């Protein structure tokens, strides 16, 4: 669990597991929510670099965190998605509110859509 989350200042980087289904999403969400509650996190960065499988539970996880962190003026970014995951995010429409990046780009500031 420890290595799934990295805190850099007000950024929380979540290393998304290899398979992100309902089972894995519950653990990931609980961990991320605990950290966001306790620390001053303003940006959640989901790194899908190691992720080979995702279903709609992954979309639900990101949507849920986006709703919560938006209330305190925070952002969510999704990076390192492969073609397959990009298709799933596009089908779900979540790419209209959250920037989905195939490349590592989270060092750029203010590149989220819809602010």
């Amino acid at each position, binding site marked *: 669990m420890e290595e799934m989350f990295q805190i850099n200042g007000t950024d929380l980087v979540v290393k998304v597991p290899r*398979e992100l*289904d*309902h*089972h894995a*999403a*519950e653990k990931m*969400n609980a961990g991320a929510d605990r950290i966001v509650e306790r620390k001053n996190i303003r940006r959640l960065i989901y790194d899908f670099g190691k992720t080979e*499988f995702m*279903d*709609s*539970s992954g*979309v*639900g*996880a990101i*949507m*849920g965190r986006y709703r919560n962190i938006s209330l305190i003026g925070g952002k969510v970014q999704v990076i390192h998605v492969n073609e*397959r995951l990009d298709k*799933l995010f596009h*089908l*779900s*429409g*979540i790419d209209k509110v959250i920037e989905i990046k195939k490349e590592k780009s989270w060092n750029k500031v203010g590149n989220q859509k819809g602010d």
Partner: protein
Amino acid sequence: MEHTNEMSIEFDSRSCNEGFARVAVAAFLTQLNPTLEEVADVKTAVSEAITNAIIHGYENQVHKIRIECKIAGHELYLTVIDKGKGIEDVRQAMEPLFTTRPEWNRSGMGFAFMEAFMDEVVVVSEPGCGTEVHMKKTVGNRNHEFMD
């Protein structure tokens, strides 16, 4: 007579079995010589149907989920069965973004993903009697020259 082959599995509706169910169906599918994309499509559809059974059908109580698979020629027939609470309004349940559980981080995209990745999705459900999701997909039906 077309070549057919069938398998079925039954397992507890625990979330730790989601991965097992995906992999079991994917392993059965290999005899059709599927593309990686076809395998991913079927795994996603299985995962969505199983997750629905666990969360919505059985509301996180532990009961049995059954998967029935049949291969006939290049067709995969996949049925996911639970004996849970059933769906009041199937049409509404299948609308993209509709969910009864937004507070549980559900995206409302489960059926939409099944429909996107399978050729046919038919849901048979009655409140109190459970749900059957019947899916069909043509798999590995490439030109013969690419198959050797």
